[in-house]
């Protein structure tokens, strides 16, 4: 999507002239060639009034209230609900057994109305539940568009469940909670009472984006749910926080407020980094649930298996990078001014330049992640590799900055620095026995499988293993200037290795079988060059070469780590059956990790939902999953 800098004259912001539906559809078909201002002017991006952050920030911080520049993508099939291609808002309140009538789509004027079919839903109607419905839909519709755009992943994203419409429940019922639940294809947002009145989690764009981040990541890497590993669970939390952080950043006026609040030093910018302020203030003594402005390192948290705590390290590292990028842009501003530019150095401009850079840097690498058992280091390496591909010469030293931040947080080790920073060719062909064209690999899961099977030895895939290719996608990512990056063909492949849980440390699971997920993600460019290849090996022999033996050794290490983690989770009482019923779920009795019996084997996984809160009971392994009767 190209961007034009021209200002829209105020008179044209709300054009009286209406386009016909046929014209709208024509434009919609050509939307990838239209600039942002044109999209806004034509109504292909619809204005919707949402909170920058949430009502508490709106009340406390001047200028950080309702976002009057916010727009969200129009599409031809919009309907009441709102309902769109990828979302259906269902305003059912389970506490009160009430279905609130949906916001009504006014196809003639391309806007949503209250059920009276007259009242336009905007900041003057924020008490109406239909306004809430519209607001939450507009937020996720816009965030999904961001993820799918060229600045993001450059491709359509699927959900992790059967189906393509994520159900959004804006007033799900009473509770200090909000969660994404794959099992019901839904994102559920609850309300609760505080001293200041009812808190609607659906009005907090941070909460909505955080939970939606889980849904997006679950769609991208569905096997991350099947995990007991601390970093994989924490990565889900990180993804939620990152999504919220980046989406808040996209707003021009909000960035101005943040800079004003922090006097230009982003290290003070709690407003931005503190997620879900209203929720946090109403629910805990700490002003923010989690904050990106922390100093935690992996070394501090060694042995900590609590996902929320661990996720702060990675969120903190990415915020460090953000501050570093901002500092570079600030210097550029000064340099430009000194060199006789016509403009004064501007923090606002520096931050505005930082944001798209940061979005690309953090989101595009998601396609380079392994299909299972992700670690923070996998993400750090993916970020560095994506940067190298997009910016091979790196005149401003971004990779140096990132490596420094990752090492400081303990996500990479000092020993990693040299190989990462050594000059090397950006693109190499993978070593293969049998050549397949990218076209044939990308054509189908079958095509990708034949490519992998023909090259088992070189790809360290054990001979006896029957591998699955759950997804193959092509992506057209772009640089921040809107220029195309090499087209990516992303192949994920997986297999399972059976493990026996031997010994008393597995408690009631002793003697039973489970599986370890193994596999890899390979990303090729359109010429068959290797963009990235990240592997999660198993323990089976894959040859006798030094590299093959190292692969097997890594598999052994993974197996030991997995068994140790399961044992630790068992000891902490964190694994239990998920407790569901026709009457609904009982959050307190839902353990953080679940176990299912699939084909006679145990399958451990993240609990079906993630709560935004991190009350101390989550990590203590107290006996809280027990129901009292």
């Amino acid at each position, binding site marked *: 999507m190209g961007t034009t800098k021209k200002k829209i004259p105020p008179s044209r912001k709300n054009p009286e002239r209406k386009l016909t539906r046929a014209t709208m559809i024509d434009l919609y078909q050509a939307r990838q060639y239209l600039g942002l201002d044109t999209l806004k002017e034509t109504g292909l991006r619809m204005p919707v009034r949402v909170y920058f952050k949430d009502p508490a920030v709106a009340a406390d911080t001047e200028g950080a209230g309702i976002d009057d520049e916010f727009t969200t993508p129009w599409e031809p099939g919009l309907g009441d609900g709102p309902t769109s291609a990828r979302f259906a808002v269902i305003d059912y309140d*389970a506490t*009160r057994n009430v279905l609130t009538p949906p916001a009504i789509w006014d196809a003639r004027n391309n806007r949503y109305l209250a059920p009276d079919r007259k009242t336009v839903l905007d900041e003057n109607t924020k008490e109406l539940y239909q306004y809430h419905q519209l607001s939450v839909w507009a937020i996720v519709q816009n965030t999904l568009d961001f993820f799918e755009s060229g600045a993001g992943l450059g491709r359509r994203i699927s959900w992790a469940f059967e189906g393509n419409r994520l159900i959004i429940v804006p007033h799900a019922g009473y509770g200090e*909670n909000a969660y994404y639940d794959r099992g019901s294809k839904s994102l559920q947002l609850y309300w609760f009472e505080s001293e200041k009145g009812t808190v609607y989690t659906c009005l907090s764009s941070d909460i909505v984006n955080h939970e939606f981040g889980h849904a997006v990541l679950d769609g991208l890497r569905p096997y991350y749910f099947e995990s007991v590993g601390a970093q994989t669970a924490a990565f889900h939390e990180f993804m939620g926080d990152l999504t919220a952080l980046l989406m808040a950043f996209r707003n021009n006026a909000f960035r101005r407020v943040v800079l004003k609040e922090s006097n230009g030093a982003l290290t003070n910018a709690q407003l931005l980094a503190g997620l879900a302020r209203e929720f946090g203030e109403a629910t805990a003594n700490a002003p923010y649930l989690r904050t990106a402005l922390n100093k935690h390192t992996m070394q501090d948290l060694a042995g900590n298996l609590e996902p929320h705590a661990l996720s702060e390290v990675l969120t903190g590292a990415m915020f460090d990078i953000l501050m570093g990028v901002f500092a570079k842009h600030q210097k550029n501003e000064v340099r430009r001014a000194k060199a006789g530019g016509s403009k004064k150095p501007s923090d606002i401009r520096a931050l505005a330049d930082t944001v798209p850079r940061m979005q690309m840097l953090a989101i595009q690498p998601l396609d380079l992640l392994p299909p299972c058992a992700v670690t923070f280091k996998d993400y750090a390496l993916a970020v560095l590799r994506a940067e190298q591909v997009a910016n091979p010469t790196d005149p401003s030293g971004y990779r140096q900055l990132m490596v420094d931040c990752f090492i400081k947080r303990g996500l990479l080790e000092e020993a990693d620095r040299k190989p990462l920073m050594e000059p090397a060719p950006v693109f190499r062909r993978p070593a293969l026995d049998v050549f397949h064209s990218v076209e044939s690999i990308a054509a189908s899961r079958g095509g990708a499988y034949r490519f992998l099977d023909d090259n088992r030895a070189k790809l360290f895939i054990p001979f006896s293993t029957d591998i699955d290719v759950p997804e193959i996608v092509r992506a057209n990512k772009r640089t921040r200037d809107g220029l195309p990056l090499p087209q990516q063909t992303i192949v994920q492949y997986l297999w399972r290795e059976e493990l026996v849980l031997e010994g008393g440390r597995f408690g009631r699971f002793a003697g039973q079988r489970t599986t370890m997920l193994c596999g890899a993600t390979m990303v090729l460019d359109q010429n068959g060059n290797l963009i990235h290849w990240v592997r999660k090996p198993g323990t089976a022999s894959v040859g006798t070469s030094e590299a093959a033996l190292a692969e097997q050794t890594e598999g052994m290490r993974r197996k030991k780590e997995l068994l140790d983690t399961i044992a630790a989770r068992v000891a902490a009482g964190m694994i239990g059956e998920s407790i569901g019923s026709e009457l609904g779920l009982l959050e307190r009795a839902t353990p953080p990790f679940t176990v299912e019996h699939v084909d006679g084997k145990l399958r451990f996984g993240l609990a079906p939902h993630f709560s935004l809160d991190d009350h101390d009971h989550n990590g203590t392994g107290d006996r809280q999953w027990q129901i009292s009767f």
Partner: protein
Amino acid sequence: MADKLLIRLYDVGLGDSIYCRMPKAHKNGRDFHILIDCGTLSSTDYLAAAIDNLKTMLPEIDGKRHVDLLVVTHEHKDHMTGFGMDLWDDLSFGAIWMSAAMDLDHPEAKRAKKLHSFAANAMEQAVRLNLALSPPLMELAAALALNKTAMKTLRETLPQASKIKPVYVHAKSKKADLALPLKTDATVSVLGPEKDIDFYYLGKEGDPALRRLGFIDTGLPDPLTAVPQPDAVPMPANIDPADFRQLRSRMLSTALAFADLDGKVCNNTSVVLLIEWKGKRLLFVGDAEWDGAYKEGTKANCAWNVMWNLRKEKLKGPLAFYKIGHHGSVNATPWGMTAAASEGEPLAILDAILPVKSKAGAKATVSTRRGNYETIPRTDLLAEIGKRVSNTRNYANAFKKAGKKTSAVPKFSEFEKKSFSQPQPLRTDLERMLQESRGFVDVEIEA
């Protein structure tokens, strides 16, 4: 033996019904007879058999079998179903004690009452609608669902027949209210619940996920709204009915959340009875629960933690007998279950009441049945208690000797195997298998 104190734990399936005889402890020189609870979530046939046996143990006074003290620890069916049955005509009672939480007019339990009324009505509706609940939730619903007949028997029928008034007891009950015709070498005291039920067991915040208990005062919906009839549920137009049904089953249930909180409050307001007899200490805890730590007034505390922080002088000190709480549930006997629990209050409490070094002088027993709620009893907890008491059995050996198969033990490989060959306190379920329905487990305490 007539001069030993007897504790008879009836095998009532999943429930409690406990008889205690203190030899010659009555003021007039006869034995003193106590019945603690009479309930089950299993077949009520168990209770009929238990009361039949109980009658053979009781003295006949004025043409009726006489219980000197009846204690009903808390208002859950597994502790009181029996009182809804036709079992009591030929029994009389010297005193009836119930938890202060069961007093409809207790001033410091206003919120707890509201909560309980909502929860009981909602769960009754869930049971009536025969909703598909997971096994643990079924137990919750069954235990909570209203039991008006039983409560009427306890509040009115039995006291009137015996010409007494029921006493709703708490740790600050007046001496006169708790006066019993006992000799000086025997006392019965109440360690819980505390009088201010709302403050200690609900706290300001209740359960973290239900923070702001103001909702109990003003926001709670009608129980029939919280558990709606299927045909009273509105149907959205923009999704498939099957998807909507699935969605509803995976939304947080207010009814369940508050029922769960009420279940917890109810357990934690169990009457905790300390019997001291000839220098021996016996503790009956109902279903009192524990958690990591006590916080005054801000959270829904658990009974063990409250007792430890408010009544430590009475609670601490080695026991001669411990009635293992809540059918051997993991959350009813404080122990070093996790690293955190080992470092904090939970293990300290266990070490104070059942120190390993006093093992020879300590006994314990538990009413168990692994049924719908399959993680109860928790066998590694029982094995841990087995290290601290003397009346244990190695059930692996006992089964072998008796020629019994472990396959008859429910969920053996999943929940029993690991601790089966470790000494455990006597359990009603396994004892029944070994002894061919004697119907109870006896523990004797010597003076």
